[in-house]
C-alpha cells in the first residue's frame, strides 16, 4: 500500500508537468482550431529563461546587490519567466500562425514544427549541447507520512499546479476575456462580427499557454535539475497526446489526461521493465482512442449520414 501511495505522489508530480503543458495545446486549439506544435519547445525555452532569471537573481544576491530569501527568488523567477515566455508565445503566434489562419490546417502544423526546430537549434547554438543544471532554490526536506516519503518540492509542485489550473478555469469561466475565448471556440465566423478582437484573443491565448509552459519548465528544473535543448520534444509530444486524449479544446480534459498520462507512465515503469514504458503507454492511448476517438470531453465526429 505504501508502495502504491509513494508512486501516486510521483505520478501526481509527473502528471502535473504534462497537464500544465497540455493546457497550452488545448487552449490554443479551443480558440484557433489549430495545434501549436512549437509548444513543447516553448516549455523548453521557458525552463531556460527560468534558469537564466534564477541564476541572475542568485548571483545578485550572493554579490550583495539584493537581499532576497530563496523562496522570494523562486517566486520572482516564476513571475518574470512567465512574463518573458509569454512574449515567446506571442511571437510564435505572430510569425507562424496569424499569416496562416485561412490556410489549410496542416500548413500551420508545419510552421509550428519548424518554429520548434528553430527554437531548439537556436538554443543549441547559443548555449551549446551540454546539459545545464538548475540552481537549487528549494532546500529539499522529506516528510515521512506513514511510510510514504514526500518531499516539500513535490507538495509545492502539485499544489501550485492544481491552483494554476483552477485559476485558469476561473479566468475562462468568469472574466470577459475568458468569455471571448469561449465564444471564439464556439463560433469562429460570427464572433469577429460581434466586435470581439480575434487577433488580441489569439495572442492572449498563446501568451497564457506559454506562461503555463514556463511554470512547468521551472518546476521541472526544480524537481529534476537538469535541462537540455531537446527536453521539449519528448514532453511536448506527450503533452500533445494528453491534450487530444482529454478531448480537444477542453481544459478539464487536458488536466485529467495529463495526470492520467503521468499515472500510466509511472506505474508502467514500476511494474514492467522501464524500456517498455513508451510501448505500453502508447498502446493504452491507442486503445482509448480506438473506443473513444474524440477523447474524454471532445465532441464526436461523424462522416456518415444519419438519417
Amino acid at each position, binding site marked *: 500500500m505504501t508502495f502504491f501511495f509513494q508512486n501516486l505522489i510521483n505520478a501526481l508530480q509527473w502528471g502535473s508537468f504534462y497537464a500544465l503543458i497540455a493546457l497550452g495545446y488545448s487552449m490554443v*486549439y479551443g480558440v484557433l482550431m489549430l*495545434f501549436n506544435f512549437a509548444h513543447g519547445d516553448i516549455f523548453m525555452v521557458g525552463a531556460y529563461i527560468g534558469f537564466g532569471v534564477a541564476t541572475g537573481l542568485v548571483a545578485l544576491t550572493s554579490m550583495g546587490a539584493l537581499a532576497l530569501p530563496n523562496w522570494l527568488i523562486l517566486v520572482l523567477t516564476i513571475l518574470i519567466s512567465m512574463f518573458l515566455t509569454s512574449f515567446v508565445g506571442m511571437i510564435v503566434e505572430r*510569425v*507562424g500562425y496569424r*499569416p*496562416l489562419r485561412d*490556410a*489549410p*490546417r*496542416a*500548413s*500551420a*502544423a*508545419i*510552421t509550428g*514544427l*519548424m*518554429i520548434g*526546430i*528553430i527554437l*531548439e*537549434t*537556436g538554443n*543549441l*547554438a547559443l548555449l551549446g549541447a551540454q546539459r545545464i543544471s538548475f540552481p537549487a532554490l528549494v532546500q529539499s526536506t522529506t516528510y515521512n507520512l506513514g511510510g510514504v516519503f514526500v518531499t516539500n518540492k513535490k507538495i509545492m509542485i502539485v499544489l501550485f499546479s492544481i491552483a494554476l489550473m483552477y485559476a485558469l478555469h476561473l479566468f475562462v469561466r468568469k472574466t470577459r476575456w475568458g468569455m471571448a475565448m469561449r465564444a471564439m471556440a464556439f463560433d469562429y465566423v460570427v464572433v469577429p462580427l460581434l466586435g470581439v478582437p480575434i487577433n488580441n484573443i489569439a495572442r492572449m491565448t498563446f501568451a497564457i499557454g506559454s506562461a503555463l509552459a514556463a511554470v512547468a519548465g521551472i518546476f521541472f528544473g526544480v524537481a529534476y535539475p537538469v535541462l537540455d535543448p531537446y527536453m521539449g*520534444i519528448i514532453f511536448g*509530444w506527450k503533452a*500533445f*497526446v494528453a491534450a*487530444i*486524449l482529454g478531448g*480537444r479544446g477542453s481544459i478539464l480534459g487536458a488536466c485529467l489526461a495529463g495526470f492520467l498520462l503521468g499515472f500510466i507512465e509511472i506505474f508502467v515503469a514500476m511494474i514492467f521493465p522501464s*524500456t*517498455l514504458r*513508451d*510501448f505500453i503507454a*502508447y*498502446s493504452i*492511448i*491507442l486503445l482509448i*482512442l*480506438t473506443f473513444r*476517438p*474524440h*477523447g474524454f470531453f471532445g465532441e464526436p*465526429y461523424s*462522416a*456518415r*449520414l444519419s438519417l
Partner: protein
Amino acid sequence: MQINNSLSPEKKTFASRIRNSFAQLPLLAWLCGVLGAVLLERYLGDPLTELLGLPKIPALFGAVTILKKPQLIPGTVAFLFLIYAVPILVIPRLFGSILNRLVGRLFHLSPAMSVAIHLGLLYLILSLWADVSGYRLLTLKLTLIAIIVTLSLNVINGYMGEFSCSHPGFLALGAYTASVFTLFFFVDDKVFGAAFLPKFLGPFLFPIALILGGIVAAIGAIAIAIPSFRTRGDYLAIISLAFMFIVKSIIENLEFVRGPRGLSSQPNYVDLPTVFIWTVAAVWIINNFVRSTTGKALNAVRDDEMAADAMTVNTRRTKIVAFLFAAFWAGVAGGLFAHVLRYVNPGTFSIQKLAEVLAMVYFGGLNSVYGSIVGAVSLSLLGEALRPLEIFKWIIIPLLLILVMIFRPTGLIAFKDFDVMKLISPKEKS
C-alpha cells in the same frame, strides 16, 4: 498571365520569355543539355579544376566549397558556369528543332519507346553525375529513396487529406523486415548465424525482401486504417503518432534484432540501377494510382467525406486501400534505405525523421507528384549542401519552410497532374 500575353504580345516580360523558351523545347533537348554538361564534367572536369585552382570537382554544385572557403568562390562559379550553365543553355537551343522533330517521330511510332529512351537518358545522366565521387552516389541514392517516401506520404496527407504521422513507423517496419530477410538468408553474421541460402542468389531475391518489407508495413498500416473509419484529423494524427512510437518501442525491445543497438552489415545489394528502377516504378505506380478512380475517390473523401459517401464512394475501402498502398511503398523505401546505409537502429525512425518527411511533402506541394519529387530532391540536396553551416542549417531550412508555408500554404507545386504523355510529347512552336 495567358490573357495578358495574348492581348499584348509585344510587351513580354523577362520571366515569360524564359518560360516560353522552356515551353518550346522538348524534354529530350533539356536532357541532352544536361547530358552534355555531365559528359563535359567527366572529361574536362579535372583539367578545368586545376586551371581554376580548385582542389577537386565541386561535389554538390560547389555549395560546400562556397560556404567553407570563400576565396574559392570565383573559381567555383566559373566552373559551374562553364561546365553546367553553358551546355545546358546552348545544346537545347542548337539542337532543339531537330530533337523536336525526332521526338515527334518517336512519339507517333511508340510512346512506350519514347518513355524508355527518356528514362535511359535520365539514368545515363544520373550515373555519370554520381560516378565522380562516392559522396555524390550516396546523396543521389538517398535522394531517390526520399522521393519514394515523400510520394507515398503525399498519398495520405495530400490526396486523402489526413495528417498521418506514422511514416517513420512504416519505414522502420520495411527496413527491419528487409534487413532480417537478407541477413538471415544471405549473410554470415553474428546475429542470425551462417547464410541459409547460397549467396549468389541474394541480389536476385532482394526484390522479395523489399516487397516483404512493404507487405509488413502495409499490415502495420491496418492499425491506423481501421481507426480512420471512425475519426479523422487530429485524432487520427495522434493515433498514427502513437503507432510510430509503438513501432519504435517494440523494435527497441526485440532482442533478436539487437534492440536499440540496431542491425548492421546488410549486404551491399542496392546499387544505383536498383534504386533508380524502384524509384521509377514507385513514381509510375503511384502516379497511376492517384489518377485512377480510387485516386479520385481519395480526393472526394478529402474534400467532403459525407458527400463522397452519398455519391456512392466506398469511403472505408478507399481509406484502407490508400493506407495500405502508401505504407507498402514506405516499407519498400525503408528496405532500400537500410541497404544503402547498411545500418539501421530504432533511433533513425523517430520524430526527426517525421519532421523531415513532412517537410518534404509540404514544401514540395500537396496532391502533386511533381511537388513530391521537387520537395524530396530540393530538401535532400539542400540538407547536404548546407552541411558546412553545421547547426545553422537547422535554422535556415525551417525558416525557408515557414516562408513557403506563409506565401504558398499548399507547397510549391500543389494540385498539378503529372502527365507523362504531355511531358514527352513534342512541343508546338508558338
